[in-house]
């Protein structure tokens, strides 16, 4: 599969370490999730609770004039796993061409090797996040 370069790099980083170290890497990424810009502050206060089984996540997608995607996330500190997933998306996809984001395979996250340490059930949150990002990219690019 062809992934945007930053995302591929992340996948390689995860692949190169043990399952336990993958958790540490995810925790590190959760701390690196950028703060929301001011202009989203009010919107994030009304963060959608997507489903009872999921942590609340605010997600905004913008596509600029050159068809590049910009991602904005917010998730509460008591949801580090959700923040970690969001951080993977941000690191891997922010600033990439819309077409490349849409081309990311829906199951790319299986290559991160997190199933053992995180559990497949929790990983579905990552699939859902990518689904929502793509949906918003499609909406923005018509």
């Amino acid at each position, binding site marked *: 599969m062809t992934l945007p370069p930053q995302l591929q790099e992340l996948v390689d980083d995860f692949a190169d370490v043990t399952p336990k170290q993958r958790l540490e890497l995810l*925790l590190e990424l959760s701390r690196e999730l950028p703060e929301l810009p001011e202009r989203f502050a009010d919107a994030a206060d009304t963060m959608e609770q997507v*489903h*009872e089984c999921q942590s609340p996540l605010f997600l905004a997608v913008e596509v600029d004039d050159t068809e590049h995607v910009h991602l904005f996330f917010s998730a509460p500190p*008591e949801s*580090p*796993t959700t923040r970690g997933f969001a951080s993977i998306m941000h690191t891997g996809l922010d600033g990439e061409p819309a077409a490349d984001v849409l081309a990311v395979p829906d199951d790319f996250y299986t290559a991160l090797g997190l199933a053992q340490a995180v*559990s497949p*059930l929790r990983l579905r949150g990552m699939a*859902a996040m990518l689904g929502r990002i793509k*949906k918003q990219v499609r909406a923005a690019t018509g």
Partner: protein
Amino acid sequence: MALPNDTDPKLAEYAHPERLVTTSWLAEHLGSPGLVVVESDEDVLLYDTGHIPGSVKVDWHTELNDPTTRDYVDGERFAQICGERGITRDTTVVFYGDRNNWWATYALWVFSLFGHADVRMLDGGRAKWVAEGREMTTDQPKPEAVEYPVVERDDTAIRAFKDDVLAHLGKPMVDVRSPGEYSGELLHMPDYPQEGAVRGGHIPGAASVPWARAAAEDATFRTRAELEAIYLEEQGLSASDDVVAYCRIGERSSHTWFVLTHLLGFDKVRNYDGSWTEWGNAVRVPIVQGSDRGSV
């Protein structure tokens, strides 16, 4: 030597007050010999961001489940999990976790399957401990390994399997999922993680009582009077009823199992952990869609 019970007046109202401790009781007893505090969270990383000093982590998903069979670990693995964490058969184990103790009650329920005698919930869980500004640490405890006996899991008293539920149809059942899951409409939402079931809906005759109704704003359990208003008056259940609770994979229903069993003193409550992921995929079992309970 079990630790003393918490004599807090709110807890004293419950049927089994010995199954709960308050945050102040825990703060006072932290570090006592014979006590192990276990954090069990929905979020697999949360413990590592900071936890109650001395507490150990048990992850339901990756540790209490058998890696191959859809079942819980066996007696040998359970003995290993406990022994590594300094838990003996006589240890007082206090559970706490995120999201209204949702997963912490699941862990307590699994410990109960193995007949661990002294299991207690921290009322209010992680959220209340943090809200009160109590001490948190990222230090990893290094408990001394102890011997925990290999005990046979008892799946008869508090656990129900699909065939048990089929035989139970017509008797009281509580579906603790959200109204959208109960009616089946949530199965059709695009781009959201699905229930992992072919069909949406609920088991015929099951009452819809979302689990979180038993939790107060601060994540503590509602008072006995409030719980009686929901389960006894509104739902018409009684403590002598034979009840089955279920949700999607049994996690939210273990919270309701705890409420009915230990707070309201029901004699026979079983958690159907196969829950909707099994029932919604099983061949030829009856289901009901929409918000009516329906019947068989």
